[in-house]
């Protein structure tokens, strides 16, 4: 496999290009104007006030595609402390398994079921997350005495499934 060979030879000199030129070459941009994809400014200064959206599209009341109990979007941070080296880094897969299995992972539901949606007269929609969609910071000493700590989403009913997922770690020591 030569995953980067061709790409390397075709690397654009991004540093010397204005962002507009770079953006113009991005796949997908031409097909669909993207409101926030304007070229970055060289510096900050006031711009005209945003144009008000007079007739915002309605927000669906529910998502039929999202099954109850489905895990949320992922975001979190994991840190491993290796007592032998004293180095902070990412956990090994084994440490991650321990972390996922640790008691104390919050069982707070992350489903969207029952979330209260408020609609204002100007079209604004506010969805109270009811304490869900939080990043939970956990710590666990595994059977080898290694401390694994970090932040993961609470996973509710999907906790077991999550235990079986093993992210590739950044700084395993072995």
């Amino acid at each position, binding site marked *: 496999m030569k995953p980067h060979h061709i790409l390397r030879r075709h690397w654009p000199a991004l*540093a010397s290009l204005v962002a507009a030129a770079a953006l113009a070459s991005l796949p997908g941009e031409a097909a669909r104007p993207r409101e926030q994809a304007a070229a970055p400014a060289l510096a900050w200064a006031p711009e005209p006030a945003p144009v008000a959206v007079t007739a915002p599209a309605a927000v669906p009341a529910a998502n039929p595609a999202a099954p109850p109990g*489905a895990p949320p979007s992922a975001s979190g941070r994991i840190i491993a402390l290796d007592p032998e080296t004293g180095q902070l880094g990412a956990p090994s*897969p084994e440490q991650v398994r321990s972390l996922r299995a640790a008691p104390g992972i919050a069982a707070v539901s992350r489903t969207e079921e029952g979330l209260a949606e408020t609609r204002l007269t100007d079209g604004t929609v506010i969805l109270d997350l009811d304490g869900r969609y939080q*990043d939970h910071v956990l710590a666990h000493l595994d059977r080898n005495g290694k401390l694994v700590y970090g932040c993961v989403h609470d996973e509710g009913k999907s906790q077991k*499934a999550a235990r079986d997922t093993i*992210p590739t770690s*950044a700084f395993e020591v072995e």
Partner: protein
Amino acid sequence: MRTGFGAVARVALLSGVLAGSLIAGAAGATTITIVNLDGAGEGFNDPAPVAPVGGNPGTTIGAQRLYVFQYAADVWESILPSTVEIRVQAAFNALTCAPTSGVLGSAGAVSVVGNFPTAPLANHWYHVALGNKLAGTDLSANNDINAQFNSSVGLTGCLETTSWYYGVDGNAGSSKIDLLSTVLHELGHGLGFSTTTIGSTGSYLNGIPHVSDHFLYDSSIGLHWDEMSAAQRTASAIACNRLVWDGPYAMQQAPAALAARPVLRVNSPAAIDGDYEAGTATFGPPLTVTGVTQDVVLVNDGAGTATDGCETLINAGAVNGRIALIDRGNCGFSQKVKNAQNAGAIGAIIADNVAGCPPAGLGGVDPTVTIPSLRITLADGNTIKANLPGVNASLTRDPTLLAGADAAGRPKMYSPSTFASGSSVSHWDVTADPDLLMEPFATPLAPGQVDLTQWLFADIGWFRGLVAVGDPAAGRAHLLGNAPNPFGSSTTIRMALQRDGDAELAIFDLGGRRVASLHSGALPAGTHSFDWRGHDDSGHPVPPGIYLCRLRAEGVVESGRMVKWQ
């Protein structure tokens, strides 16, 4: 070892055309309020006396906790502009805990909002703090971010062998948990560095994509997450190297934030030549653009898994002067590389022993290791082994590519081939080098480091309403901010004048006292840069904290916040 190699040259290259970190100058009015939910005598109000630590002047546990939270808030305040107060409801409570495991805390947005009249994108969710900023008004009567941390850590029955570190100098050491970086990271999620779309199923929250989905881009199918089907999003989340962030600000700033990409470059045979993705080591010398080049030899230690390099090599004659190829497993990475070094190797390649991508880094410590090393995937390792002998390779960095970005310069998002709930999608990729605040796996960072993360925030709208000085709408002098920010030993402050004239640039503390004068006198029209090494006018270093840089020119006064962390 992860270093800033390459970044300096790139910053210099860009300094003439890019704004650098403009953010301090733009964000002076932001207020992030820590709403202390703790009762008397507990949490933030814990009266237990402690000695000041690591730049934290608090003399009680409660005061130190509050100082760390406020410090983290100050860092974000100094970066993110909003005229609407951001309220973080926070508490330290006794959370679920046991001697060997426990919840340290949690944080996130209280609510999300969409379709407010000034929303840049209709039918997209925004974290409420960002929605408020864009709307210019408080859309929700509630607070904006939740934050709750465990007050029992280190006490009997709760993770007894460790404790929180309340210093703000990044010196948590090996046995304590750095509260500041944890709070900074978690507040980052609460401020919007997160999609509410479910990566494992591809489902939108209540059928609506998040603004982040507008910039999550799968380079293989040429679609963003808000353009895909759920099945496409699910596939994209585990695509490994395909999921990138194509927001213009993050792309523009990536060359300043990321170093040259570490690669294993196979020079021959022609059948497999090319660059292979590589993870870097925390020990030994850093990879360089010059690199080391030699034939590759598979090690043999004559015991157990003979290619794991855990014992003294018995094929030292073949390894001497060559690059050693070693299988992962059975002992530490540094030990393997040291054994190769003892056999005379000039470099070492660790091939993973489990499938997956991207290749992780090599952790460990051994100051006696003097040869460079890197890590490749199992698949790439097998490719090389299948062509031995006769493989010639270089351990190097490619200055035309960025570590943590694709070939088009788009920063990669973490999307390993196995979905990692809690890590995938809503973090930068682990191949970013230097490390970034919003990577899923924390590694030691400069205290208060915000890095490329601030530019992702620019993409999702945190700096909407702020454009180019060169724009006709500007027409006056401007403070362009400082970089790096936060900073340690020095920072560069940039300013732009529209016409020739007098200008004054000075540093003040939060008490309004002038700390240092950087310039006073005539300057020509154009952009100017001034370095501040964190010293007062007497040449004495000033203590860590928040400082204001103030520009007075062309009849206007403009100031911005800077964070000095050491």
